[in-house]
């Protein structure tokens, strides 16, 4: 309860006209930066950092916190309306959001769902942050290389839930994704690998251009088929009134949002995991639960899980940042740089030495969450106008947007070519019924898995059993892993032997 007293104190700090103004401004800028493809929260925060030098540290960090946070809202806009994720955590928002907006003709509701579940996820994350406080950061520390290895293996099993109709093809493509992700400098041994002598490949294949290609650009190639026989039927619902969620929609989005909010927060706390991994994991987890419509076809549950998770993870990543001075993500690191700039010492003593500041920041996250929600709901009608534009005009314009996003993410033409190639390859695979979503998951998680696995092997001297059973956490996770892998096999055996008969699915 002491922490809640501190939180109230934090609200006291934040409630000044100046700080609320900073919070509002940060939220607006964050939404815009978030909606711009290729510009992640990292670049957004880095660009605005210099603006805040003249402010008092609390005001400055409130503005940056609000910006970081509302970024996660903004990423959903272009994902849902254009099928181009504004930022990597929004990749899976596109997977369900875009079909919901276009096929299901419920664009307003898709945006609403994204915003509402972002808000729920954020609030869940912040409440956990307040209740556990610094203890949450200590929890994150318990995950060393061995624990992370097993956890990521567990996470990788979720590829199995995402593969769709043809598991062989889905996993095949995921493996290609993993190999592509392994191109570049190997950190452990400091040697270049699979770079084919190309300095740009040495830097690895950047995720954002890769995603813009496989998701957005491939989609444009498909849209060429439909551009001439398009019938307009979305126009009548493009008002705020026509965008309201029904009671039934709320019933569908709340449980996944709460669940993803909870899990997402803890993923956000883990070293190096971040919002992207959180949204992928929670989306995959949602596959394990019941959804009214299949995920990937425009299901509210899918949008809710992905959006709630990434906001919760953003909140969770503040725990190691504030309590230990450890940045969970690049964005956190830039915020950390800001703290030093204002003469604060980020590190284990921050909560004790500068409680006004630390709790003021947490309180401001609550406020920016509400502010970002209000603003995004307000601009939904404006955004919906985009959908009135006929596809044949949209195609050349979105091609430019793809270029801008890919270029901005890498500051070079290299990103643009990566985008183009992955777009063409993605189109070919999609056309032959290979699902690309598991490949994206593998692309994000595999480098983390490899890094942690190699570290774990170095730490244990190559002893596999020590990796899997090095601690209580690792042991529990290993058991979960075994159960997850064994379950489908046992189930098949039981069905084959006639011990168990599954209920017919429709």
């Amino acid at each position, binding site marked *: 309860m002491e922490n809640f007293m501190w939180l109230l104190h934090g609200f006291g700090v934040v409630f000044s006209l100046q700080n609320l103004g900073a919070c509002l401004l940060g939220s607006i800028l964050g939404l815009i930066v978030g909606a711009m493809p290729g510009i992640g929260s990292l670049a957004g925060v880095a660009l605005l950092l210099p603006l805040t030098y003249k402010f008092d540290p609390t005001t400055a960090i409130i503005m940056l916190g609000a910006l970081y946070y509302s970024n996660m809202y903004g990423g959903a806009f272009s994902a849902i309306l254009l099928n181009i994720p504004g930022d990597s955590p929004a990749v899976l928002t596109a997977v369900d959001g875009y079909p919901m907006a276009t096929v299901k003709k419920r664009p307003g509701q898709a945006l609403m769902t994204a915003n509402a579940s972002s808000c729920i996820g954020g609030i869940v994350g912040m409440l956990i942050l307040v209740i556990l406080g610094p203890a949450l950061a200590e929890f994150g520390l318990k995950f*060393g290389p061995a624990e992370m290895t097993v956890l990521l293996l567990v996470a990788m099993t979720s590829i199995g839930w995402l593969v769709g109709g043809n598991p062989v093809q889905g996993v095949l493509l995921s493996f290609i994704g993993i190999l592509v992700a392994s191109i570049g400098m190997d950190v452990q041994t400091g040697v270049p690998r699979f770079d084919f002598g190309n300095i*740009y490949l040495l830097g690895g294949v950047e995720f954002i251009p890769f995603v813009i290609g496989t998701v957005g650009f491939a989609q444009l190639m498909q849209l060429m088929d439909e551009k001439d026989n398009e019938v307009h039927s979305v126009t009548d619902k493009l008002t705020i009134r026509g965008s309201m969620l029904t009671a039934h929609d709320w019933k569908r989005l709340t449980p996944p949002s709460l669940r993803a909010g909870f899990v997402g927060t803890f993923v956000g706390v883990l070293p190096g995991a971040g919002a992207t991994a959180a949204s992928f994991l929670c989306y995959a987890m949602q596959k394990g639960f019941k959804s009214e419509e299949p995920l990937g076809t425009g299901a509210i549950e899918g949008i809710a899980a992905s959006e709630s998770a990434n906001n919760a993870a953003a909140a969770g990543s503040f725990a190691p940042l504030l309590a230990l*001075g450890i940045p969970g993500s690049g964005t956190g690191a830039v915020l950390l*740089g800001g703290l030093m700039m204002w003469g604060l010492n980020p590190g*284990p*003593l921050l909560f004790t030495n500068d409680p006004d500041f630390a709790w003021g920041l947490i309180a401001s996250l609550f406020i920016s969450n509400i502010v970002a929600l209000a603003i995004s709901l307000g601009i939904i009608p404006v955004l919906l106008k985009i959908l009135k534009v006929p596809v044949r005009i949209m195609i050349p314009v979105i091609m430019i947007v793809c270029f801008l996003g890919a270029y901005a993410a890498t500051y070079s033409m290299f990103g643009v070519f990566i985008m183009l190639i992955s777009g063409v390859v993605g189109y070919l695979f999609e056309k032959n019924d290979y699902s690309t979503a598991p490949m994206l998951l593998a692309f994000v998680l595999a480098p983390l898995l490899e890094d942690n696995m190699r570290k774990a092997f170095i*730490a244990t*001297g190559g002893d596999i059993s020590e990796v899997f059973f090095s601690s209580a956490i690792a042991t529990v996770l290993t058991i979960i892993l075994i159960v997850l892998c064994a379950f489908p096999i046992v189930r098949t055996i039981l069905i084959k032997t006639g011990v168990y008969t599954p209920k017919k699915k429709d």
Partner: protein
Amino acid sequence: MKRSFVLAVAMLMAAAMVFAGGSKESGDGTFTPTRDVTWTVTSNPGGGSDIFTQEAKDAMLTNGISDANIVIDYVTDGGGEVGRLNVSRMTGARADYNLITFNSGDLMPMCLNTDNRVENFTPIAIMAVDKQLLFAGDVTKYQSWQEVLDALAAGQRVVIAGSKGDDIETYNALIAELGVDESQLAYITNDSTSTAITALLGGHVDLVLGKPAAAEQYVLAGRMKPILALSNERFPTELFKDAPTLGEFEGYENVEVPVWRGVAAPKAMSDAAADYWTECLRQVSETTDWQEGYIQRNALISQFMDRHEAAEYMAQYQADYLAKIGKDA
């Protein structure tokens, strides 16, 4: 229609010039920045290079040395090689507005893994010399260097975590002096010291090898403890002075691999701009902020070299290193 086409193109060319242009050197050959400056750091934020850059930038701003708006850009791809390559290749007006933090720990892997060389940059300054220590965590097994030595003698496996680049060189010098191999005293490479510290705080590794700046706050909070100074004499500062050097243990020589910290710029940077930045950094190195807030606090050795001295020094360092690894210059 053809005409409108030509007209449009011409107008856009003009527009392109307006927005892409920056300041040119003014008539008298001096340079004053008029647009945002990008300062590239090739390791993760929170590590030693980042702190160095932040402090230099801060000193420049608070002491009114330069009022340019400096944006720090972290480009860690390819172990930093991509960032270095990009900066070295920048051309035109942009070249005057780009700086990169360039240390001995950046130069060595660059020479080892790529064809990029110091000649592809305009060295701006060398600012300081840094050294490393070994730290134990509050939850780790060994709390003193003697315990580590005993454990190694008993055939135990000890794991050190650290950053890339120069930290690895120091680690190699350490195992050579101790006469153990890398399977017994193992080293986990991280993107930055801050990641290594995370592993130490959780008790997943035994020791962290790092520079004082990245560890200071954790030592202050009692979460980490310096147990060995990788230096020829003990560190003078209060926080680190209790750490013995290796030479204080019987049968061992001191291990010291000094790391210089410097700043470089694209090769295409104009002389006027290079003079401007070297002068800015010279002034930074003389401020109290820098001397007390960075150099003394982090137990570095202040050593300013202007761009001509730095160029010579870096070239020599590179030649020595290339000879050592058996590569042609």
